[in-house]
């Protein structure tokens, strides 16, 4: 396997020492099939144990290792060194406060996830004896794509609206709400609408589409948000023009 010397320029920030972030260069001997995460692991193991970053599965399913690689939101475990030339700049995921080095503060996202009630809220409670909630393959396919989200937050880093307006609930959270709204077993849409059909919800989105472009799981959050907009608009006109239809 070929070896290659890679120059990494990594953003460092120690809250106990630094006033603001700075960059640090590392020269890393890499295998040709390595990803950025491998290079970072090599740095931490062999050169600088103080370097902090999140990672776990190393196979693009856990969503932990999101960071900016040459200005692009990427999973470090999915950013192949062979696709880069020259110095590779590694920074924490954009639009989130920096905790330390490449670790971001993700509390905002965690809050938003909770707000959209990302769990099944059945239309009617059913006892165990009544059996399972059944679903046809077609009903499953309706929302399946939106179940693929791994909460990696690359979409928040790419979204220009989230960058400008931090209170925007954001692509992943709204997509997750849509995933449950589209699930035939669910009856909680009205509750979720109270969160996402708001000015901080889907109406902050201007369909830039950056979220879908960077999503590593091809969830296409932009499509979910537009569908929520259209459904919310139909609801609004129906509620206001034909109020007698309200249940």
């Amino acid at each position, binding site marked *: 396997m070929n070896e290659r010397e890679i120059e990494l320029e990594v953003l460092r*920030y120690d*809250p*106990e020492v630094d006033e*603001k*972030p700075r960059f640090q260069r590392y020269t890393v001997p890499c295998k040709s099939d390595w990803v950025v995460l491998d290079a970072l692991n090599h740095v931490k193991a062999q050169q600088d144990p103080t370097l902090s970053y999140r990672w776990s599965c190393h196979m693009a399913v856990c969503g932990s290792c999101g960071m900016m690689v040459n*200005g*692009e939101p990427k999973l470090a475990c999915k950013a192949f060194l062979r696709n880069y030339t020259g110095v590779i700049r590694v920074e924490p995921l*954009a*639009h989130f*406060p*920096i*905790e330390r080095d490449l670790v971001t*503060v993700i509390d905002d996202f965690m809050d938003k996830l909770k707000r959209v009630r990302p769990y099944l809220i059945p239309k009617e409670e059913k006892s165990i004896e009544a059996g399972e909630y059944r679903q046809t*393959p*077609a009903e499953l*396919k*309706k929302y399946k794509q939106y179940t693929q989200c791994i909460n990696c937050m690359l979409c928040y880093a*790419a979204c*220009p609206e989230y*960058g*400008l307006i931090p209170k925007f609930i954001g692509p992943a959270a709204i997509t997750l709400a849509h995933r449950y709204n589209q699930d035939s077993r669910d009856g909680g849409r009205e509750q979720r609408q109270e969160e996402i059909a708001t000015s901080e919800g889907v109406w902050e989105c*201007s*369909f*830039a*589409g*950056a979220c879908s*472009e960077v999503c590593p799981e091809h969830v*296409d959050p*932009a*499509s979910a948000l*537009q*569908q929520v*907009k*259209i459904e919310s608009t139909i609801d609004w006109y129906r509620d206001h023009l034909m109020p007698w239809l309200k249940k």
Partner: protein
Amino acid sequence: MAEKMSRKPYHREVPKAGWVFDHPRYMRYMAREFTCLFIGGYTLLLVIGIGRLAAGRADYEAFLEALASPPSIVFHVLALGFAIYHSVTWFNLTPKALPVQIGEDFMPDKVIAGAHYAVWALLSVGILFLSGAF
């Protein structure tokens, strides 16, 4: 023994308008958004034209003459380019906003977008023909 942990999260500023130049995808987005200036501007031109039509033959014909000026032609060419960019981006995004599930599977994006392009072409040729452009 518990050591005191000091947190001091660092907030990175997003440039107010400069972010557009950070990546080609933001430039493409802004180009798409800017189509509104030309489409809105052109429609206002149409409104003026309708006003001249209502004012009478002399006024309307003066309007047609003014259309032939170089600035007007430049505007038309630019507006046409931006209007087409709006159409293309709009039709390509329509399948995302309006998915059609038939049975189990979804209609491919290309089919939905393709149908829009076909209607666009037929409508345009139809309007050109009916208005005696050729």
